[in-house]
């Protein structure tokens, strides 16, 4: 991308981004590389992730085994793939509560469409992509048209999708889960793309980890190197001001919701091709986990600030914590409490580090 960025200031890494504060003469400050590092939104999360990693390395014997590493990364990737678009959306100032069930919808659509039409699996996969993108457009369109809070709009979509998932599945396949599609044409190739395993240096890695890494890289490039990325920061920082300088606010937001749709499609296909049968009632509650990952990773709930890499670190913290508790053999009745406490601590550490970082600027 060689286009010059439009004059929008709110960019992390610009040095004078969200931190604000009295403007100092930049030339008076020391090492510019260090300064740039301290200004990154994900710095706090990285320190938090290190703390969580060290903690579980000490308390859980099997945490440092290589096979455990694959398990933790896989857990992180299933959250991380969705945390990326949710983080972008949050930078753009909006939420999507339908993201969790949309994953299930996407898996249900490809499975049932292919099965009912006795078509090649890839047809269903493609139809599913169209539908999830359409749901993204619907969310974005309703939001920008009605100017209602995204909380309300996507809560509506969330409930409707939950009902549709079960209602349609039962209507079409007569049970609450889909029929097995593993013997259909195209299943194996689709499985390779969405749910295969690679062995790297004795560690079994799921392909979702590659998807995750790819999506994080793509989102980071969009945010920091493209015009659309500038628009995202602009609409999240101040939509009215952005509109005034000519940013297509409506288009940007619809695009962000389509991003959520696309990633939900990827996760949904993974769900389908790794388990072959999809349960219609799943996915509820995951939307909050994606949001949490984005917030831990340094996204501001109010919009205008954050990063895709941060969301990945947030997902990694979540994956380490949820599996680390199992490796540490703690009493499962307290699982959610430990999870909550670890997340809170990670977030506090994150906030503290960021404050220190801003103070040193």
């Amino acid at each position, binding site marked *: 991308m060689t286009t010059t960025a439009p004059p929008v200031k709110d960019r992390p890494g610009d040095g004078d981004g969200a931190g604000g504060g009295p403007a100092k003469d930049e030339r008076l400050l020391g090492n510019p590389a260090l300064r740039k590092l301290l200004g990154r939104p994900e710095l706090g999360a990285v320190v938090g992730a290190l703390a969580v990693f060290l903690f579980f390395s000490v308390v859980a*014997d099997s945490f440092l085994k290589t096979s455990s590493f694959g398990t933790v990364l896989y857990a992180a990737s299933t959250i991380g793939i969705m945390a990326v678009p949710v983080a972008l959306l949050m930078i753009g100032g909006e939420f999507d509560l339908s993201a969790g069930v949309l994953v299930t919808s996407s898996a249900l659509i490809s499975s049932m469409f292919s099965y009912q039409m006795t078509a090649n699996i890839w047809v269903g996969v493609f139809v599913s992509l169209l539908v999830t993108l359409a749901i993204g457009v619907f969310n974005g369109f309703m939001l920008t048209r009605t100017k209602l809070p995204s909380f309300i709009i996507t809560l509506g979509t969330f409930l409707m999708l939950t009902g549709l998932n*079960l209602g349609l599945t039962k209507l079409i396949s007569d*049970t*609450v889960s889909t029929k097995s599609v593993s013997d259909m044409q195209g299943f194996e190739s689709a499985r390779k793309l969405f749910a295969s395993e690679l062995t790297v240096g004795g560690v079994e890695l799921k392909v979702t980890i590659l998807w995750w890494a790819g999506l994080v890289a793509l989102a980071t490039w969009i945010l920091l190197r493209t015009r659309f990325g500038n628009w995202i920061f602009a609409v999240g920082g101040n939509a009215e001001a952005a509109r005034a300088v000519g940013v297509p606010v409506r288009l940007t937001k619809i695009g962000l919701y389509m991003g959520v749709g696309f990633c939900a499609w990827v996760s949904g296909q993974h769900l389908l091709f790794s388990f072959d*049968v999809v*349960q219609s*009632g799943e996915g509820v509650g995951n939307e909050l986990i994606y949001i949490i990952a984005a917030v831990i990773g340094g996204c501001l709930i109010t919009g205008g600030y954050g990063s895709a890499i941060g969301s990945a670190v947030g997902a990694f913290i979540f994956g380490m914590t949820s599996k680390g508790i199992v490796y540490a053999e703690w009493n*499962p009745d307290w*699982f959610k409490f430990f999870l909550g406490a670890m997340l809170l601590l990670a977030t506090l550490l994150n906030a503290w580090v960021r404050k220190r970082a801003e103070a040193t600027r």
Partner: protein
Amino acid sequence: MRTNRKAAGRTAAALLTACALALVAGCSGSGGKDSEDKADDGGGGTKAKTPRMKIAMVTHSGEGDTFWDIVQSGAEVAAAKDNVDFLYAANKEGKEQAQLIQSYIDQDVDGLVVSLAKPEAVKAVIAKATAAGIPVVTINSGAEFSKPFGALSHIGQDEAIAGEAVGEELTRRGKKKALCVIHEQGNVSLEERCAGVKKAFGGTVENLNVEGTNMPSSTSSIEAKLQSGKSTGEFDTVVTLGAPFAAASVKAKAGAGSNAEINTFDLNEDVVKQLKAKEIGFAVDQQPYLQGYLAVDELWLNKNNGNVVGGGKPVLTGPALVTEKDVPALEKFTARGTR
């Protein structure tokens, strides 16, 4: 200043005395902690001298589910007796359940106990466990998948058979229209129970989905359904698929002014009380305690004596039909959470 502090001290002392008095005078004559059965857990005895082993159980339970708590207490008693380190984790999403099992494989446990409510989700990871030489015992529903997945044994209840037993009993009781309350949307084994009821029942069956983790919402949904039934032909029986929902249905029935008989799958202390009070017709017990206890015991026996139970067939722990007549014998066991 000094007088103030003294006065404050006196007030505090007075308050303390009043509280103590209230505590003594306010003793409840019934219920409460004092009424708990002090009997031991039924395990007791001496511990086995076999080498320490580690067994993990991973189920699809939601948080704080009574049923799975009883399974766990059975497993814990067997573990204590067999010198076993017992670990437990649960998640109601199939994908998460599979990840939890994988974490225990990473930990090199000596045996795994897995519930099969979402068989396809855990299929691959069970194969991994057996490939890694970790024996797996499956419990609860999904008996038909156990053997093909390579599990040692299955200990549980055949949901269809249990459902049919309920259907037959309802027909015997002369019922015409039943409401089957599903408390976990998308749980295959719950659907199988309702299907079983439908198959063996002479009358008609309607299913109702409720939000199982939200009791007030479940109660109001059942109430609304019972009321709506008034115009289209009244329900004369409600079948709930979990013990806590029987209590919810009793409330809903009163709210809707319905005469439906409440019957339920599974037992707990409340259900026994309600059986006694004739608020519930009958209950189908699948003896969750046995599922936990036998699963751990089976893994221990297999390791130390090479035993396999069931002879290639599932070991059934239910259905056992329980009515008001069985209450005296049951009360003691449900009160301590083992039945």
